């Protein structure tokens, strides 16, 4: 992977100077501050109650930080990739790479890997802070790993969506806007569709089942994300809003085999692959048509070559 010269170059320039370290430090300070507030307030409330320390606080903290990072990924990843190709086009550096024999898929994957690495670095750097909750129990290490896996696929999806848009539009600003609108539609458009379907097609009969919800919202990152916290979300305002209950469904997903986060992660993976392939196809200047394989002339030529 590191043999990809795009990755090497981007890492070199992105990590140079004071900006990246400053960003990471600022972010960690911010998180540390939140953690401190949480623990202080719990100490404060402990004074007036019988328990010395309420383990719920740790759980709350975990949920809050997880959510904070979720929104961070949601907003930052597209910004990092939605200008990747269009920005090179605007700065007139794209042709210089395209005229080399570097494959267009290497360019695209290089850009994505670097952007994702950059955001995930923020998340990874915060792991120790998140891990303080282990002191109090209530969270398993598998929860943390699953959360991280979810972040990874989400960043991959956001990143490849951004790259795809940046190959589609000449202007970075347009690409950026379209990327964010798409994400917005995934988050708020899919529940609206579900509601419309429920009211106008099903005529408000039974409450939509989890199966119905998933058929509409498998691509909704918030829906998938909140299901990760099933059973833990009580008390957390924002997770509450996006939890099943809000859609008039049973609060837990019960024994249903496929959980929303699974569907969402699968969707993210498949969609990312498609977006990356399309983006690579799009920037290849001498691409063949998607459906027309070879012209007659090329076929004839090939036959001739085979004969020789």
């Amino acid at each position, binding site marked *: 992977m590191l043999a990809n*010269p*795009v990755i*090497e*170059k981007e890492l*070199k*320039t992105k990590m*140079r*100077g004071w900006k990246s370290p400053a960003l990471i430090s600022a972010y960690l300070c911010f998180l540390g501050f939140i953690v401190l507030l949480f623990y202080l307030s719990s100490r404060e409330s402990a004074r007036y109650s019988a328990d010395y320390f309420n383990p719920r606080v740790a759980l709350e903290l975990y949920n809050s930080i997880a959510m904070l990072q979720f929104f961070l990924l949601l907003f930052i990843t597209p910004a990092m990739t939605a200008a990747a190709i269009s920005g090179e086009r605007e*700065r*007139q*550096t794209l*042709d*210089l*790479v*395209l*005229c*080399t*024999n*570097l*494959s267009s898929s290497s360019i695209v994957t290089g850009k994505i890997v670097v952007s994702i690495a950059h955001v995930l670095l923020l998340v990874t750097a915060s792991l120790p802070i998140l891990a303080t909750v282990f002191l109090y129990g209530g969270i398993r290490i598998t929860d943390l790993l699953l959360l991280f896996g979810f972040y990874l696929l989400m960043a991959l999806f956001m990143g490849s969506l951004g790259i795809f848009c940046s190959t589609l539009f000449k202007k970075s600003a347009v690409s950026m806007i379209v990327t964010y609108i798409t994400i917005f539609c995934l988050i708020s458009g899919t529940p609206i569709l579900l509601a419309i379907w429920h009211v106008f097609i099903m005529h408000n009969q039974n409450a939509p089942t989890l199966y119905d919800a998933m058929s509409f919202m498998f691509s909704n990152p918030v829906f998938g994300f909140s299901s990760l916290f099933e059973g833990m979300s009580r008390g957390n305002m924002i997770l509450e809003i996006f939890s099943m209950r809000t859609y008039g469904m049973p609060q837990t997903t019960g024994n249903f085999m496929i959980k929303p986060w699974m569907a969402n992660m699968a969707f993210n993976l498949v969609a990312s692959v498609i977006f990356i392939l399309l983006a690579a196809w799009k920037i290849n*200047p*001498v*691409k063949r048509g998607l459906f027309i394989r070879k012209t007659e002339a*090329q076929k004839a*030529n*090939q036959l001739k070559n085979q004969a020789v």
Partner: protein
Amino acid sequence: MLVVDNLVKSYGKFKAVDGLSLDIGEGHIYGFVGANGAGKTTTMKIIAGLLKPTSGKVMVDGTDISENPKAVKRKIGYMPDFFGVYDDLKVTEYMDFYSGVYGIPKPERKKIADQLLELVNLSDKKDSYVDSLSRGMKQRLCLARSLIHNPKLLVLDEPASGLDPRARVEMKEILKELRNMGKTILISSHILPELAELCTSIGIIERGKMVISGTVDEIMRRISHGKTLRVKILGDMEPAVRFLKEQPIISRISAASEFIDADFDGDSDVLADILKNLIKNDIRVVSFTELEKNLESVFMHLTIGGVQNAG
């Protein structure tokens, strides 16, 4: 080395390149001349694999570009007319990046970069950031970049555009050095004389079509049958124009505000007679010269002809 056969590139109904053919032998320097919008950049981009031709064929060193673009790109060094550089990258890192792009192993990169920077006189700028370089330096850096994988064919789109006279001379010296290294070069320019002393062959392109193509001498020969006489007259030009028109050896006359150009076919004897008769007819001749046929005037002649034919 480079064979372009009946190349066409259409944008809708408009044909930017219209049935262009070229054949450049190994070690030749081919000058590609044409007015703005003639289709030079379009042709060169197609050769560099950055644009898909509507039809036609490009062969580099015996390989068809549409069949094996990667192999062809390995043989071509391309320098675009406009290009940008990454900010936040030093000159050595810039070279290192493109070496990596061409898959040159790490240990060899530094040596190659040093050699090339030496060639383009940028050795003392090794540790500068590329976006801090002057335009001329960036252009030379881009040339060095296009040489990084030791390509056989160089496609240079107006490498001297936007440079001051001194930098132009420097660029020309570098190109001469490349010629001595045995590279085949396709180079475009608006300015014919600039190419004349560098190139072995020249092609003039107009509205996507090759107007004329051949070695520099050949073109001169093909154009120079038919010479031009320039006469400057004091006072009313009308009688002079009328008189010149009557001369049988003069085929075409164009009168500007200060002088008259007349195409003629004949030797100095005839010219002397014409001058004698002009003066006899009381026409006040200030100067009377046969125009030096240089490439510039050939170019003007040909391209203006093209516009007139089309219009």
